[in-house]
């Protein structure tokens, strides 16, 4: 991390497995840095205060709201965003399940839900409906009533168990 003369800093970090160096404002949140400095716009700003989960990313292996992380904090860290969930071979089973279960309507909350769901299944491969709903309570969806999202989560868990 190098501080420049202004309020700018050079940040070295790893995003989706790739080492990256970028210039940020010291006031930038991780979400702002991803979207406006780096150009990864899959994480969305829904509320900017940790109450909607649209900006969910993984920071050092843990689910966080990127609006509640300062960009400068990711110096030397590892970040995974929605853009890093699918592999060259294809979609992640969680993504496939969201498609098949029609678990999205407008799609704005979808990146956050997929990152959060993957985090859930990585930690609890066989969640009950209740556990899935509790884990995802910080991710707001206004279109679906959550029904098909929860079905997709449980279906992805089944697929991944096979």
């Amino acid at each position, binding site marked *: *991390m190098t501080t420049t003369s202004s*309020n700018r*800093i050079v940040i070295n970090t790893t995003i989706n497995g790739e080492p990256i160096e970028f210039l940020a404002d*010291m*006031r*930038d*949140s991780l979400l702002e840095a991803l979207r406006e400095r780096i150009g990864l716009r899959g994480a969305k700003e829904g509320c*900017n*205060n*940790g*109450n909607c*989960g649209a900006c*969910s990313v993984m*920071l050092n292996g*843990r*689910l*966080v*709201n990127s*609006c*509640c*992380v*300062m960009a*400068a*904090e990711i*110096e030397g860290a590892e970040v995974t965003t929605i853009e890093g969930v699918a592999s060259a071979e294809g979609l992640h089973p969680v993504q496939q399940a969201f498609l098949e279960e029609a678990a999205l309507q407008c799609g704005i909350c979808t990146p956050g839900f997929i990152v*959060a769901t993957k*985090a*859930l299944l990585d930690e609890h491969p066989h969640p009950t409906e209740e556990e899935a709903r*509790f*884990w*995802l*309570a*910080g*991710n707001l969806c206004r279109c679906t009533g959550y029904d098909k999202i929860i079905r997709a989560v449980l279906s992805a868990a089944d697929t991944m168990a096979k």
Partner: protein
Amino acid sequence: MQALKYARAASVDEAVKMLREGGPTARVLAGGTDVIVQARERRRQIELFVDIKHIDEVMSMRMEPRGLTIGAGVPLYKIYGDAQIARHYAALAESTRVIGGTAIQGRATIGGNLANASPAADSIPALFVLGAVATVAGPNGRREVPATQFCTGPGVNVLLTGEFIVSIFFPALPAHTGTAWERFIPRNEMDIAVTNAAAMLTMNGETVTEARIALGAVAPRTLYVEAAAAALAGKPLTDASIAAAAVAARDAATPIDDMRGSIKQRKHLSGVLVERTIRRAAERARA
């Protein structure tokens, strides 16, 4: 976001130095889930964030015979996810498990929850009944501050310029002790407590030998309700003694009317939650 700078401290001493030089507008950055939002929404004047998460002591958690020490930067998920804590400090596990959503719990800390000094803070009633003590480092060395004396009003605490919480210590609880925590919120997650409560009971057979009761969101700071504890201590635990404790809790509550709850609702819930936490703590004490 207001104009602020970010600095990373590698040691407790360095953090103290940075905070002292930064003056009153320097602020510790641990989980950041409160302070980042406060800086963005200009609700607190913050010009410097001192990131303490690269200090080993701040990030460590240890269970010893004398008690449990949790670094001020340890995120909530590590606390409620620890089987020992869930067993021995149930009130702490229960409260940390529902602060914010999962993503908030990946970052938020009890050090931050305490320092933020919200009257509705979820972990503070648990800290009160567990007898938690904060270890504070500052320009004049270290001092210990009981959780019950830490907050001085809404959003304000005893920390002086240059000071910060390094860790929080939870003394080992006597045998046959149970604790419980509960809050009421309108939704099932993601709300600020309308009222929250915690209880600790030590039992000898059916007799309560020691009781502690705390209530949140019903006064400018979390209440340690001596009268409710007195209604239980030294007596067999009965419906009548529990009811007396609940009445004492209701009487002690001096809440305000705001968008999150009314006076009537909060006073009533004080009794309900105190009764519920007493009963659950008692079950655990007997187990």
